[in-house]
């Protein structure tokens, strides 16, 4: 078994690396764009205008209430139909991932804003701060400290969820496994390699986030 893994890695290492690259850029791009969208959605949900609040609420509920695989299928089928230009599978899938992640990030951002003590708002108001200054100088900077660690977690989640793109043979780590498996018929060794790479990645990232989070907290104390 170990021997098989060694042989497979020697032969197909570059293929796995290519898959790893696909996984990484898709997750990173998804989370980055989802952060922008999620923030906007969260702000609209916190605004007072009811119709747009309701729309955003619908978006979030739909994303949370349907399987992600189904969302991928939907975009994969639908996007090429409505777009006037050629849409590759990769673009459809990344769009779907962004659509999915945006809703989760919106919830993260909203929770981060709501977690800021209401006393901070009252103190800001009592000093005569206008709405914009109140949010930009008091609420959002403090919310950011709640949001950033959760965004890191969303990135880790995405690294795992991009594996669903393998259903559509979009180049990423699980697709690499499928390719190697179908060529060599060595299912378990080829799967093990992919699993080890996934685990190493998420494990490292979790540690890294932990360090960043601790540093952020100690900054607040020292600085």
């Amino acid at each position, binding site marked *: 078994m170990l021997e098989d893994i060694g042989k497979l890695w020697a032969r197909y290492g570059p293929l796995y690396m290519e898959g790893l690259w696909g996984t990484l850029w898709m997750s990173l791009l998804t989370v980055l764009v989802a952060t922008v969208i999620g923030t906007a959605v969260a702000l609209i949900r916190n605004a007072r205008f009811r119709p747009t609040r309701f729309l955003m609420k619908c978006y979030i509920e739909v994303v949370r209430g349907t399987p992600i695989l189904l969302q991928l299928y939907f975009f994969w089928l639908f996007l090429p139909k409505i777009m006037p230009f050629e849409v590759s599978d990769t673009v459809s899938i990344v769009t779907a991932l962004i659509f999915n992640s945006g809703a989760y990030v919106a919830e993260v951002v909203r929770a981060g804003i709501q977690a800021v003590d209401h006393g901070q708002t*009252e103190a800001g*108001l009592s000093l005569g701060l206008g709405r914009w200054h109140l949010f930009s100088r008091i609420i959002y900077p403090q919310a950011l400290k709640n949001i950033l660690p959760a965004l890191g977690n969303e990135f880790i989640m995405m690294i795992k969820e991009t594996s669903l793109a393998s259903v559509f043979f979009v180049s990423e780590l699980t697709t690499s496994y499928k390719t190697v498996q179908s060529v060599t018929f060595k299912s378990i060794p080829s799967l093990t390699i992919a699993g080890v790479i996934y685990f190493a990645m998420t494990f490292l990232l979790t540690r890294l986030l932990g360090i960043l989070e601790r540093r952020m907290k100690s900054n607040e104390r020292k600085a």
Partner: protein
Amino acid sequence: MNGKREILRTKALHKSFGKEEVLKGIDSAFFEGETVAIIGASGGGKSTFLRCLNLLETPEAGEIYFEGEPLMCAKADKASSRSAKEMLRTLFLARETTAKNTGAVRTARQRIGMVFQHFNVFPHLSVIDNITLSPVLEKNIPKAEAEKKAEELLERVGLLEKKNEYPTRLSGGQKQRLAIVRALAMEPDVMLFDEPTSALDPEMVKEVLDVIRDLARSGMTTLIVTHEIGFAREVADRVLFIADGLIYEEGTPEEIFDRPQKEKTRQFLSKVL
């Protein structure tokens, strides 16, 4: 007090939280330079009353005047006065989650300082930035000038050497002194203290009360909701006893503490003295 300038006045102030009516029509007036202690049992409405004065709570009915200018006028009969426009508004606009913050209210708040029970200092800003934030942003005072002023104020309350620290490194008493200075930096005409020592460890109460006493004696108009009866007796020119959402009894500290006229006042004092 009649010769003095009126700072704040309320007429028939009503405030409910859900079904519970917390303020049942409070009439009051506060004049320049006086120190007024507001006492009463927990849940009697004294904090709510104070918070209404700068509209952190929005009363359902009543009037508030700040330096003679109306800050709020609301009629009691809401249902009949509701126009079509208002109904559209409630259909399309969700209820405000924070207190009202229009230009007029904001301008008034800049001249009404407030100190909270839980300090509410800004943890992400250094001590000096806590103080200069609002003067720089809202009064367009140059940063250097605001900092000079802040340093003077910090000196006054013995916190100058902490100016570059972050609030997490301050004790409760120091945080509260910072909160007081932060409010003073706006050069308010009146200071509202909402149970400023209730969240403090006992050994830190004195340092905060000392600052408030100095402030009151320097001529600042001061309203303080407090459980520190000894302090109220010592500093206050006037004491309001609030119970059941009304000003039940008011007078000089001697009148209230030594010769209370009403049974409820006596009952309350017998519990706290």
